[in-house]
């Protein structure tokens, strides 16, 4: 697992209070990890803070799974 993936997983576990094993790449924040819409707003803010990236609202709306988050952040960091 990449460094980004590890860090994303850690943030999700902390913020949503879920078991690490449940945080698979395919896991949906809302459908699988018990988040509501405000939780996802806060998660995206936590990603921004941790990785020093800007995630505009229209991009944030498309981040619904753990993998979406990892991919978006890695793309931003590569750019």
């Amino acid at each position, binding site marked *: 697992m990449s460094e980004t993936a590890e860090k994303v997983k850690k943030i999700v576990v902390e*913020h*949503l*209070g*879920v078991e690490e094993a449940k945080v698979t790449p395919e896991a949906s924040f809302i459908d699988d990890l*018990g988040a509501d819409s*405000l*939780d996802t*707003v*806060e998660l995206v*803010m936590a990603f*921004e*803070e941790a990785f020093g990236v800007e995630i505009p609202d229209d991009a944030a709306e498309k981040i619904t799974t753990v993998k979406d988050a990892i991919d978006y952040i890695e793309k931003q960091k590569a750019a």
Partner: protein
Amino acid sequence: MFGHLAAPRRVVVTGMGIACPLGLGVEHVWKRMTAGESGLGAIQSFDVSQLPSKVAGQVPQGPKAEGKLDVAEWIPVKDVKKMDRFIQLALVAAEEAVQDAGWLPQDEEARTRTGVMIGSGIGGLPTIYEASVQIYQGKTRRLSPFFIPSALINLASGHVSIRYGFKGPNHSVVTACATGVHALGDAARLIALGDADVMVAGGAEAAVSEIGMAGFCASRALSTAFNDTPTKASRPWDKDRDGFVMGEGAGVVVLEEYEHAKKRGAKIYAEVVGYGMSGDAHHITAPSEDGDGAYRSMKAALASAGVRPDQVQYVNAHGTSTPMGDDIELGAVERLWGDAAKGLAMSSTKSAVGHLLGAAGAVEGIFSIMAIRDGIAPPTLNLDNPSRESPIDRVANVAQQRKIEVALSNSFGFGGTNASIVFRKAA
């Protein structure tokens, strides 16, 4: 408007819960209180070097098994950050109250007939402070999406309703230090008038923070002369009193329509028989000197209860330990009780837990009910030298065994708002 009612319905108390500076749990707190213990101490949780008042009553930190609070034992980690501490304390007290009442209905009809009315004096003040700092630091975009719902006063009621599925009236009271009594009284009326069969009602406050302390220091309301002897700082009616001591906590009760409680075989602590309110129309923070507001509030409460002053054996006073307020209230009680004053016991439990602001009326209502249940008037700690004599027994320093059938509890708030509630021993 109320044409559907043949007569107001009777309302009883079937469950109680407390989180306060003496700890968690009604029995635990009451045992400590009647033993004359104090929950006040030096503030450790933040820097008080710039504050003239350095004492407060904070809910003790520790495991549930010791009657202390570890929030993680009560609320999922994920949810803790979504609520200011006052909401957390409300949830803790509500959990005890509904478990005590055995009222965890699973059917839709019962849930829709159960409401919540938990208020707060000032709500999520520390949360607002932190958000302000963040904005000042230029981190406006980093503000938590939970900031507003964490600070809103009615979210205590909201969270309790969500946790237990209570779908009846969802309401909240905000009347400064009179909040707790207004919440209990108004909730009882909703039941009496048929809006609900059960109400989870009370008050919660957690303003022992830098901004809360600084604010009350600025209005010259807090004790400053006892920073080295915190347990001596709250001393209602004593000649050396110099202001109130801020406390935090929550009190929640389950109020229930009498027949509803009887039918399910619920334990009945007491009946809510009277409720009165008044406004001073005088000053934003000071009570009217003649005690007229307090007098009319108590008089209205006794009238609605249909009891005479001589039928009341115990008064839980507002008695905050301020130089002005204590004797004004004492005068109002003496005037209303007249000759019956010499048979009356009146104490201020704020001497042990401090002033819980919006939670005060709720926890003191519970203490009044416990006084009825056990026939014990809790003490007024530190009442060593009364600033003036009175025929009323103010239960100085040591609890008293007394036959208590009817008790009245007072709460008065900034803005000149007064409320009194009357409880009677369950028949």
